[in-house]
């Protein structure tokens, strides 16, 4: 067997690839993140808000972009594509084509001088072609890496040999027209494919008249809504007016067998609802209408979001699929003709704008990549995986995640991505840490006893700052400020030679504090901090004064005032830096074991994934047997028996030497925090672990009181499956009723799995006896994603579908079911039946509150556990070191539970794999002498970092026991809320101390520069 290589190639730099890369890099594996465009970020970077919480997409994504770009174990290969893969699992050689960017990334500072001079205008992909960019460009403001790329196809110099402007204006000589594409070979142990999807191109569906300027795709509409979009967030029609009525047409390029795209794209119903809601937030007069077949609001919080749009915001949901968009030949007015549900009539309605909710299609580049990798694809062009191994491709060592395998939303993609990382990590566990490089720095200089000696670099940023701010005047002023030893002007403070110069200046002037006045700390602080460390200074003795984004760029017409403001900003920064303290992280030993609660398919997968990586793992199940919810069903959607996947899994769990299984046991007590949990089991066993995963699952609801449940011939889907397995279904007329006890006031959520389960069982009933009559009574059919094929198959087999509404439910009597069919003009039917099958929702089991209490983690109003962030942290709790997976988070299908379970294991192992836990330097600490033990810090801390501890106070007169707050440095995240709340000033929020912030406020006030000594 070839030698294992502790590195992974991740193809695709969207949110999936980024998440896989971060998990693996945190676990001590080297990662090459390969992205074909000039920046990582993918489609999520183009979205305005995300459903169902309407969070700003860029706000949640951009910290991940920055993290990926800074991670010492991640090498970004942007503008690059995989050309060839050879080798076997554990040792692949991957040939990567690095496309020529014609810009030297080491020299380019993204100063944008070239942008102004480039004469070639190109449709801007980031704004979905609705605005123009230059041939030399940064794809979007938050792009990572922050370097320019020349689009060779549109560059005048490269195509015609003319122009050359960018090279002329570039002051860093970064432009290199001679640059060529080149191949680079990388050696990795595993490959993850995560190149995502392509939005469906609606041009081929001529009936929708996409060529009309006011017929836009949903992605274009996303850009229209975005405040960084082409019209800064104002939705406009082609004539410049604001639309009053907008319609969304669902399933454009989805659920359409005629064009070879029969499946559901899984995300469009919700993004359309989101877009309608956000558009109405922008313009309260706006009327929004969503034309749909079924509203597929199946995920966590989706149904409630849909109800809110419909009932509170007034979005109309019309259940009809207009056959096309009509355009008035004279006025160009858009209108839609549609069938009115519940009648035979057709209506025609005018709209100002029509949004086509385009589906997710496999991209050509993904297909090409699949061919290069040699992995199997399904008939639709998705990478083929199975229910029990949803991230595993047909080639060992090559994994897939995200929409490359099937359409899915962001949280499912993120879970998949962590899951794929877990699989890659498992085969390379022995190689952790072998290929990562630790940066070394010179010994740090002790400055604690020294007076501040401050150096200030004022950056011109080419002309970005210097064309507005009078930099020489600023430098002259700064040189007069207290403690400033040396201030100087620099054309580009961030260029490599300037950074070297800063190091020289630190040594030459014996500086112990540095201020760089240039751009935003959000992108450049780590770079300059690193420079300080290279010169022997603690990185926290540095401050960035932002005189570009916050000054020269926003006051271009007021150079005098901008110059005064720049002086103020730097004066405030100097006052701050003078009082900054060196900060240090603390390294702590910890327990490298895992704990999993719940022995269902999610819990067992999670436990196996941790144990496979070499960590001891405890798996606790309160029932006497492993298997969980899946054990109560008999078949999977692909026709296999559930025991086909459960039996080998149970055997693997029982035989893994790293795994201890405790069945018929509960976890009764937990204390401690990440890295040092201690627990006590019901049998008295005491265990220790560093990280925990909650996978306590869900149960099928007993639908007492619904549709005659309890009578002999009224059963649930799980009971039907058992009967089908026994061959004891003695019925020719079977009625299934969906949402039996779900989507109502008691359980307002959609249970996600029931429609797919009903289709699976309807097909089984028909296949067992084609003469049977099967009726499915439903509200919406939510066979999302690829499971649409089961719905199609059921219809082909002759299963009959009738739609009911919540306010007019079917009535089950002895031997009959009566329904008013909404599909057939409210016709009332009485169906003779000998078996009624209720699709009851999954509900959280007893005891979730107890588990929640043990780990101090939240549950939502439906008693499912509440993750840290519904989009980007789907398996994390806000509490460090505790994760969740499977139906404990919300109802989900088996493959989704397995993906989440591997994801939770990956997240847990990225902690367990560390040698020591490192605390942050920017945290809060308590001065015990000042603390009065009031506990207000505990009330405001979002993480439970402070704790009141009993201490013995000994004075000369008296010895007594009192309570004092203590902040756990391993838990604190440094937000500083406790310091603001503390009534006695006992808490110091390091790096943002009251003294430091007060000094900045005082420096603001003393505009003449006569700063009084604050210290």
């Amino acid at each position: 067997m070839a030698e294992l290589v502790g590195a992974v190639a991740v193809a695709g730099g969207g949110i999936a690839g980024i998440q896989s890369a971060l998990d693996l890099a945190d676990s001590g594996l080297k990662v090459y993140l390969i992205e074909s465009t000039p920046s990582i970020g993918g489609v999520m970077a183009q979205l305005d808000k995300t459903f169902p919480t309407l969070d700003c997409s860029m706000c949640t994504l951009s910290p991940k972009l920055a993290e990926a770009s800074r991670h010492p174990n991640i090498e970004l290969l942007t503008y690059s594509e995989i050309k060839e893969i050879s080798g076997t699992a554990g040792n692949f050689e991957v040939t990567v084509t690095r496309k020529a960017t014609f810009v030297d990334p080491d020299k380019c500072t993204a100063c944008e001088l070239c942008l102004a001079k480039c004469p070639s205008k190109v449709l801007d992909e980031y704004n979905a072609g609705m605005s123009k960019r230059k041939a030399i460009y940064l794809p979007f403001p938050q792009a990572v890496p922050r370097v320019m790329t020349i689009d060779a196809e549109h560059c005048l110099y490269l195509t015609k040999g003319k122009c050359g402007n960018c090279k002329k204006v570039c002051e860093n000589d970064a432009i290199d027209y001679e640059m060529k594409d080149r191949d680079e070979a990388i050696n990795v142990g595993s490959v993850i494919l995560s190149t995502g999807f392509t939005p469906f191109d609606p041009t081929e569906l001529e009936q929708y008249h996409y060529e009309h300027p006011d017929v836009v795709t949903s992605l274009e509409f996303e850009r229209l809504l975005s405040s960084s979009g082409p019209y800064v967030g104002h939705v406009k029609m082609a004539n410049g007016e604001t639309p009053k009525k907008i319609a969304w047409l669902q399933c454009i390029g989805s659920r359409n067998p005629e064009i070879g795209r029969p499946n559901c794209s899984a995300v469009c119903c919700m993004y359309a609802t989101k877009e309608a809601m956000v558009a109405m937030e922008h313009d309260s007069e706006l009327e929004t209408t969503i034309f749909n077949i079924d509203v597929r609001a199946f995920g966590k919080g989706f149904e409630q979001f849909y109800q809110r749009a419909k009932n509170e915001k007034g979005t109309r949901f019309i259940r009809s699929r207009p056959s096309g968009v009509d355009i008035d030949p004279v006025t160009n007015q858009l209108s839609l003709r549609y069938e009115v549900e519940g009648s035979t009539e057709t209506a025609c309605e005018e709209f100002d704008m029509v949004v086509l909710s385009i589906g997710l299609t496999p991209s050509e580049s993904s297909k090409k990549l699949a061919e290069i990798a040699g992995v199997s694809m399904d008939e639709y062009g998705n990478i083929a995986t199975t229910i029990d191994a949803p991230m595993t491709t047909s080639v060992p060592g090559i994994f897939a995640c995200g929409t490359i395998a099937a359409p899915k939303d962001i949280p499912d993609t993120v879970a998949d991505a962590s899951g794929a990382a877990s699989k890659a990590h498992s085969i390379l566990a022995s190689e952790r840490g072998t290929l990562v490089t630790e940066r070394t720095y010179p010994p740090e200089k002790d400055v604690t006893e020294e007076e501040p000696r401050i150096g200030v670099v004022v950056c011109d940023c080419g002309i970005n700052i210097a064309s507005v701010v009078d930099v020489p005047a600023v430098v002259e002023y700064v040189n007069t400020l207290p403690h400033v030893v040396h201030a100087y002007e620099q054309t580009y403070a961030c260029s490599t030679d300037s950074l070297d110069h800063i190091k020289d200046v630190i040594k030459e002037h014996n500086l112990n504090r540095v201020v760089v006045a240039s751009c935003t700390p959000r992108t450049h602080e780590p770079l300059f901090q690193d420079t300080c460390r290279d010169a022997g200074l603690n990185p926290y003795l540095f401050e960035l004064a932002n005189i570009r984004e916050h000054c020269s760029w926003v006051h271009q017409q007021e150079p005098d005032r901008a110059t005064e403001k720049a002086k103020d900003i730097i004066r405030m920064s100097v006052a701050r830096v003078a009082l900054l303290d060196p900060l240090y992280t603390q390294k702590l030993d910890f327990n490298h074991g895992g704990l999993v609660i719940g022995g269902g398919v999610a819990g067992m997968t999670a436990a196996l994934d941790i144990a496979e990586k070499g960590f001891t793992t405890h798996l606790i199940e309160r029932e006497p047997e492993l298997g969980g919810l899946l054990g109560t069903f008999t078949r999977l959607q692909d026709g296999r028996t559930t025991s086909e996947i459960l039996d080998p899994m149970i055997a693997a769990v029982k035989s893994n030497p790293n795994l201890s299984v405790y069945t018929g046991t509960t976890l009764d007590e937990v204390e401690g925090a990440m890295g040092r949990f201690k627990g006590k089991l019901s049998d008295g066993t005491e265990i220790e672990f560093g990280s925990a995963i909650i996978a306590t699952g869900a149960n099928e609801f007993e639908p007492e009181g619904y549709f005659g449940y309890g009578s002999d011939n009224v059963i649930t889907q799980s009971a039907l499956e058992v009967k089908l397995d026994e061959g004891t279904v003695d019925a020719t007329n079977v009625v299934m009723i969906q949402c039996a006890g779900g989507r109502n006031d008691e359980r307002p959520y959609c249970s996600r799995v029931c429609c797919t389960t009903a289709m699976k069982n309807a097909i089984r009933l028909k296949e067992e006896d084609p003469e049977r009559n099967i009726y499915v009574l439903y509200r919406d059919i939510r066979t999302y994603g690829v499971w649409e094929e089961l719905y199609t198959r059921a219809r082909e087999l002759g299963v009959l579908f009738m739609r009911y509404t919540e306010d007019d439910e079917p009535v089950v009597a002895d031997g009959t079911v009566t329904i008013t069919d909404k599909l057939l003009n409210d016709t009332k039917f009485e169906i003779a039946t000998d078996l009624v099958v209720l699709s009851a929702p999954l509900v959280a089991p007893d005891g979730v509150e107890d588990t929640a209490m043990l780990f101090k983690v939240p549950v939502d109003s439906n008693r499912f556990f509440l993750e840290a962030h519904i989009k980007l942290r789907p398996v994390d709790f806000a509490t460090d070191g505790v994760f969740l997976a499977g139906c404990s988070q919300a109802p989900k299908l088996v493959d989704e539970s397995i993906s989440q379970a591997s994801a939770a294991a990956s997240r847990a192992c990225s902690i367990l794999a560390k040698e020591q836990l490192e605390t942050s330097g920017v945290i809060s600490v308590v001065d015990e002498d000042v603390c009065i033990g009031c506990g207000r810090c505990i009330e405001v801390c979002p993480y439970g970092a402070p704790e009141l501890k009993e201490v013995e106070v000994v004075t000369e007169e008296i010895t007594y026991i009192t309570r004092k707050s203590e902040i756990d440095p391993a838990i604190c995240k440094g937000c500083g809320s406790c310091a603001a709340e503390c009534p006695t000033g006992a808490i110091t929020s390091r790096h943002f101390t009251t003294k430091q912030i007060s000094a900045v406020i005082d420096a603001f006030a003393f505009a003449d520069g006569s700063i009084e000594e604050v210290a």
Partner: protein
Amino acid sequence: MAEFEPRIVMFCCNWCSYAGADLAGVGRLQYPTNTRVIRVMCSSRIQPTFILQALKDGADGVLVTGCHIGDCHYIDGNVHTEERMENVVDAMKHLGLEGRVHLEWVSASEGPKFRDTVTEFVEQIKALGPSPLRAE
């Protein structure tokens, strides 16, 4: 006499409103020069005494910004900010400083909102005139 130019202290949280200010810059959205930003990790770090100090030091107004509720990088830090600022804004009414302290949520993608927030607050303070606490 030259028009009154207010001096305003602005607090921004690192994750949302400071990023929103950066985005306004990237978009070259022009706004008045009167504000001076103090960056904190979370708006919940801003203790009421900072605002009092800024006013005492001669600021004509204090603008506090943070992530929208639900977007907080620290889960719900901004909920505490909201509570504290309600109290501060209320106290200002009783101190004859009404309208000089304002709280606004600005996300990392809201460059235009950042510009508008600053522009409107500067207008508001201009209308109020110099702070009575300002030493002339």
